[in-house]
């Protein structure tokens, strides 16, 4: 009987999720502009004063630096998550030409890649992240 209850519940969950997909599709959030990324971050960081920022090539993330820290704003489902870079935030940081490979010390976000427009900008932000997490 418990197994029937469990299987029935799983089937019910499956049907509700399918209905959700049919009604709203599979959302994939994109940052349309740097302004949108800054506005998203400003809602979480009072008094944010942006020094420099860059949008990823796929529009799924942005790196933003203010006077005090560097932040990642990344698409997650139909929303966004924010990560502040500080000592201990990253397990490793590497670059593959224009793509930054971030390995976080974060159980729910172990890795995130940020493809940038060109290798020079990727190298610049790699340095910025290295300094922020040193």
């Amino acid at each position, binding site marked *: 009987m418990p197994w029937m209850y469990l299987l029935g519940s799983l089937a019910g969950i499956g049907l*509700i999720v399918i209905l959700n997909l049919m009604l709203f599709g599979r959302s994939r959030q994109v940052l349309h502009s740097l302004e949108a990324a800054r506005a998203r971050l400003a809602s979480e960081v009072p008094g944010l004063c942006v020094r420099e920022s860059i949008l990823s090539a796929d529009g799924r993330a942005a790196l933003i630096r203010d006077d005090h820290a560097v932040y990642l704003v990344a698409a997650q489902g139909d929303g966004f*998550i924010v990560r502040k870079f500080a000592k201990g935030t990253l397990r490793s940081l590497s670059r593959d030409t224009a793509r930054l490979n971030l390995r976080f010390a974060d159980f729910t*976000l172990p890795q995130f890649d940020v493809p940038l427009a060109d290798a020079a900008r990727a190298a610049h932000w790699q340095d910025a992240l290295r300094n922020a997490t040193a």
Partner: protein
Amino acid sequence: MNLPSPVTLATPAFVLLVIGEMLYARATAKAHFEARDTATSLMMGLGSTVSGAIFAFIYVAYAGLVAQYAVFDLGYSLAAFIACFVIDDFYYYWWHRISHRVRWFWADHVQHHSSQHYNLSTALRQPWTGVLTPSLLLRTPMFLLGFPLPMLAFVHGLNLVYQFWIHTEAIGKMPRWFETVMNTPSHHRVHHATNARYLDSNYAGVFIVWDRMFGTFVREDETDPPRYGIVKNLGTFNPVKVALHEWVGIAADLIRARSIRDAFLYLMAPPGWSPDGSRQTSDSIKAEWKRHQATQLVAGE
């Protein structure tokens, strides 16, 4: 006396109402759903039911043990039911407040707050790990008072059923008298928000009067719409990771702790506490926000 489980009885209504809210959201855009988020919430609900069933024997054994020393025998009168419901809600307020202010409890409760959405499926996003917290010990006075244990389970179920409908953006404000006394969608949206002004407020289960009495009530401000989730939102929809993430964080901190005092505070201080103050607690976030508001006010003068 055999009493039914209100949550079990209400489950078909929960399902129909979630579907109804989805259709309403599609038609009006006054509520928001995301398939993976919904799936996570529903799987958390199912997992919570399973873990509750597995560990129910601990609750039954402890409650039975303590009830032997009950001061009164309050029986099953209507007055006892009403008193039990009100006292249980009072207990719920304090348990909920502690769950936001002590990381050990938060590690369990954070699972309910982990969605960036606020719809009826969020109500079903329930934690799996209550057995790892001392929550049951907090109920000891309830057992000692002498309410029959089936009655305690029944009124607690009613409390949870009440809280289902307040997890929605589809309802604006209720009539004023109702907003004054009862917990409502508006009050609970504030509770689920991460906006600095809303942090650590509106802990009520059924009666919002507890928040008004104990100074934790915050009204929803139309000029500052709630942003839902947690201060550091999760980078996953995996329900197992949702259930375990704060426990993993605590374990890592305990391993790193340089003293017994630090280890104790990693567990018992508010979420976000760290020995060097490098992380943010809700208090520090609110203080920073207030400082910024004051600066803006001065700049505007």
